[in-house]
């Protein structure tokens, strides 16, 4: 078994109203940053898992997203699999 770190990004679906993103966009505009078309806020989860392969680790992350980590009605998710020693990865 190898230890992998899953980096799971959960983001609001395109087109979905993201009031937090809108508020940040307005705040940036009030700081005179021009040309900001859109801001969307999601979250990143880091999961340290043991698996026999990167593929297996990814599949497990996928299942976790479908069952709990993302809401299929409102959120999309992307998974990156890192095979690195945990010390090298930002916590």
């Amino acid at each position, binding site marked *: 078994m190898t230890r992998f770190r899953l980096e799971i990004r959960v983001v609001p679906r395109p087109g*979905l*109203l993201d*009031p*937090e993103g809108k*508020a940040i966009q307005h705040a940036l505009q009030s700081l005179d940053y021009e040309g900001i078309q859109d801001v969307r806020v999601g979250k990143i989860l880091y999961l340290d898992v043991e698996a026999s392969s990167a593929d297996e680790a990814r599949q497990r992350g996928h299942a976790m997203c479908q069952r*709990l*980590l993302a*809401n299929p*009605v*409102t959120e999309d998710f992307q998974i990156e699999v890192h095979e690195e020693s945990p010390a090298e990865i930002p916590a």
Partner: protein
Amino acid sequence: MKVAIITFPGSNCDYDLYKCVQLVGGSPDFVWHREVELGNVDAVMLPGGFSYGDYLRAGAIATMSPVMDSVKAFAAAGGPVVGICNGFQMLCEAGLLPGALLRNDSLLFVSQDVLLRVESDSTVFTRGYEVGQVLRMPIAHAEGNYHTDPETLDRLESEGRVLFRYVDASGKATADANPNGSARSIAGIVNENGNVMGMMPHPERAVEEILGSVDGTGIFEALLAHLSPVGTT
């Protein structure tokens, strides 16, 4: 009417519900979320609060509790289930009701009285009201912005499954009267079989004059009348 009130770490409307069920003549019982069995009950209620601190998404982690399998089985067998506020969020997260509750469009936690228009009087929860009747009860939430895709919204409307809408004093569902940005001003819905209801406003906090409104009582009385018809108990 024996009612199981499911309590989670972070529930805070469980005692309000308990008192409310007693008030209309029912027999409430707390069921801790780690329990596996519901026992012999006639209805299940999921209270408001902040289960698991709203971590991940409001209501999401609560739906992984052991008791939720029994709640799902109870609902599938046609048993009446009521979810209020955080309970509504759980019902959506558990897939027992369509859609999701997003962050309020104002980004604020909103705690105030709202006016609700009754949209259907043909469910076991709302048959004590008349369509078009306007009720006053409080809301207190940060994630009450009801969202689902347009097709599901159309289906909810055409099947008479929107139970309550946020309205102004004249009974109109205006943008100003919508406290959280909910799609089509939806405040409460019911499932396809008519036995699972979720709503963001708190009817259990509007059951005594001293609370400022008794308009919420009708939901609990209607459910009691359905489960314990006069002459059968």
